[in-house]
């Protein structure tokens, strides 16, 4: 499945016409919002935590060079091989080279948006390396040849029935829509793969600069097996995923689970400290970490928009978004979706390709409210809208209209005439003007051409006259 951010308008229409999808998204987001609220309401210092997380991330992002160097040194000291990739192509090349060197034929993957971002799966498949997703949602999405439609729940756009049918068709099992049975079917297939895979690939939730460790949180133990069983492990992370030390990790672990899944804590917190421990005799023989830039350093250059790099991909802003709730994630046309996706799309893909994304928002602010790191998403969307306009990607007619209107509004007399005139015309026309797209489903009132100012001043005059009569 290949989506394009520039096609978002047609994706939105498609999604709105797809009742099954809408029902699934509606149900899933409702549940997520409720579960999150229950957990968050029970933490009296939630707001303080959000502020702290914001401040920590600001420090990290503003001193990213220092933290990255510190991380590299520490990770290397731990025996982790550190690779730097400037873009997706370089990251893929590095991964491929490691695979070839180790004669890798099969790979198990645990959920990682960063590897979606670099389109790793198709790349590996094209080179005869089998890459299997092991997170249940990702596994389903991969079977369907879809991309994830949510940051933490990749198959959120599907119903239980959809999944039952899919398993029946693709895996040849009897149809069932019982979640536990579906889970066992997937588990039985995945377990074998874990044991035979030559390499594991994961993402990273938090990399710890002070100790050179990688933290990966999850609920299904598939990441644990992905990391622990194969001989070679590669972790792919965006360069923004750093934290200074384990002390800060505590803040983020407290915030992440309630925000993402409405849990108090994620079931597993995996920490990779390095390769095979000689004393314990467990774990992969090689651990590689790929530090991916792929446009992040460009985002870093903007003192306001760099805040979008604070994101910990919890998905709370998606669940809270009244637009996401209607259309789901594919409508945005890229691997990052929802409110935060709308800010990332033009920044990663360029304002031309991403010219619509910042406008797919009513600026209601529910996302900011939900974000555990306090990313002021509506504000960033506004700034990105400005960038789209500045770079000449708004419609010519809109530009002319706004320029003319803004000119008139500088001169009250002109403005008054300009706004009085349509009122007069409308009186003759006897119907409100149709606004394309707006008035079909919504009635509008009539301009009466008089307005508040006239009425108010007339009232005042009348009062004045009355008063003078009294005198």
């Amino acid at each position, binding site marked *: 499945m290949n989506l394009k951010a520039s096609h978002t308008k047609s994706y939105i229409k498609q999604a709105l016409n797809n009742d099954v999808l809408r029902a699934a998204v509606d149900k899933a987001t409702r549940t997520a919002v409720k579960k999150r609220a229950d957990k968050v309401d029970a933490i009296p210092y939630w707001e303080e935590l959000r502020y702290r997380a914001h401040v920590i991330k600001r420090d990290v992002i503003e001193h990213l060079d220092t933290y990255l160097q510190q991380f590299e040194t520490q990770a290397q000291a731990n025996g982790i091989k550190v690779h730097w990739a400037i873009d997706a192509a370089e990251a893929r090349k590095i991964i491929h080279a490691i695979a070839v060197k180790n004669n890798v034929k099969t790979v198990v993957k645990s959920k990682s948006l960063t590897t979606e971002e670099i389109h790793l799966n198709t790349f590996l498949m094209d080179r005869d390396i089998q890459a299997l997703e092991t997170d249940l949602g990702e596994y389903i999405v991969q079977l369907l040849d879809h991309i994830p439609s949510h940051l933490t729940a990749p198959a959120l756009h599907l119903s239980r029935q959809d999944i039952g049918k899919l398993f029946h068709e693709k895996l040849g099992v009897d149809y069932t829509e019982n979640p536990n049975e579906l889970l066992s079917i997937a588990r039985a297939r995945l377990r074998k793969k874990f044991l035979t895979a030559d390499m594991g690939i994961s993402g990273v939730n938090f990399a710890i600069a002070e100790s050179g460790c990688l933290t990966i949180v999850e609920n299904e133990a598939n990441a644990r097996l992905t990391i622990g069983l194969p001989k070679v492990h590669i972790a792919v992370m965006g360069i923004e995923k750093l934290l200074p030390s384990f002390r800060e990790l505590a803040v983020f672990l407290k915030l992440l689970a309630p925000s993402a899944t409405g849990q108090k804590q994620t079931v597993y917190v995996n920490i990779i400290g390095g390769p095979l421990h000689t004393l314990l005799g467990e774990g992969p023989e090689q651990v590689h970490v790929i530090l991916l830039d792929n446009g992040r350093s460009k985002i870093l250059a903007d003192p306001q928009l760099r805040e979008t790099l604070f994101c910990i991909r919890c998905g709370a802003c998606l669940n809270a978004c009244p637009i996401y709730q209607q259309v789901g994630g594919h409508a945005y046309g890229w691997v990052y979706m929802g409110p935060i996706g709308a800010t990332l799309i033009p920044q990663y893909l360029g304002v031309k390709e991403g010219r619509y994304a910042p406008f797919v928002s009513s*600026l*209601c602010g529910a996302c900011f409210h939900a974000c555990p790191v306090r990313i002021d998403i509506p504000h960033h969307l506004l700034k990105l809208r400005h960038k789209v306009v500045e770079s000449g990607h708004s419609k010519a007619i809109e530009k002319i209209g706004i320029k003319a209107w803004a000119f008139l509004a500088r001169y009250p007399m002109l403005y008054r005439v300009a706004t009085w005139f349509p009122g007069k015309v409308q009186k003759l026309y006897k119907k409100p003007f149709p606004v394309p797209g707006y008035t079909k489903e919504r009635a509008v009132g009539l301009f009466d051409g008089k307005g508040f100012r006239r009425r108010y001043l007339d009232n005042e005059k009348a009062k004045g006259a009355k008063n003078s009569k009294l005198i």
Partner: protein
Amino acid sequence: MKVALFIPCLSEHLYPESALSMVKVLSHIGAEIDYVDGQTCCGQPAFNSGYHKEIFPLAERFIELFHEKEYVVAPSGSCVAMVRKFYYDLDIRRDLHAARDELAGKIFEFTEFLVDVVKVEKLGGVFPHRVTYHDSCHLNRELGVHEQPRQLIRTIKDIDFVEMQQPDLCCGFGGTFSYKFKELSISMVERKCRYIEESGAEYCIGADSSCLMNIEGYLRRHNMRTKTMHIADLIATSLTNE
């Protein structure tokens, strides 16, 4: 106490009665009304669409016109948010920065002004109907005004105030969003109106004419029973009922 009126475009042209109601209520509590002639638009529609330099002159005019007033009050949260918060994103003339700060501290949305500034506890008034309240997004999340309108509604005698499901759910208006992504916007207002109807209220009260226009438009076009009403109209009507 002297209150300068800031009448946003929609109130001026489409909902002048609501703005007049605001004047009535402000006069009722003893405020001296000051109408600043020559006001036009704060620039919000263009700003939200990504146009900045086109509206510098509008923002500068606005600041010059209003910054020396004692209080500035408007019947709209989003226009107040524009002046109080988003004027900081505009590259306005340096010599006006101090005036901008000053204005940001004295411009208020109507219900915010009544409750937080004037500290009105009881306005009096009667309104024997069932009402619900829609939280406009900018008012609620940008200005943090959530309780104030509810507090005012609850002081009205005989009113039956019920909360709808998700009162702070966006109505889907979003200015130019409502026609740029019309299908999406309509799907959102459809949901909002469903919740309004389900509340069983006769009136859906709001504090921002733009959201009310969107909601009212959908309710009317689809022959739904609930009417919309600006909170200024609600209070003014209740006072006359007394």
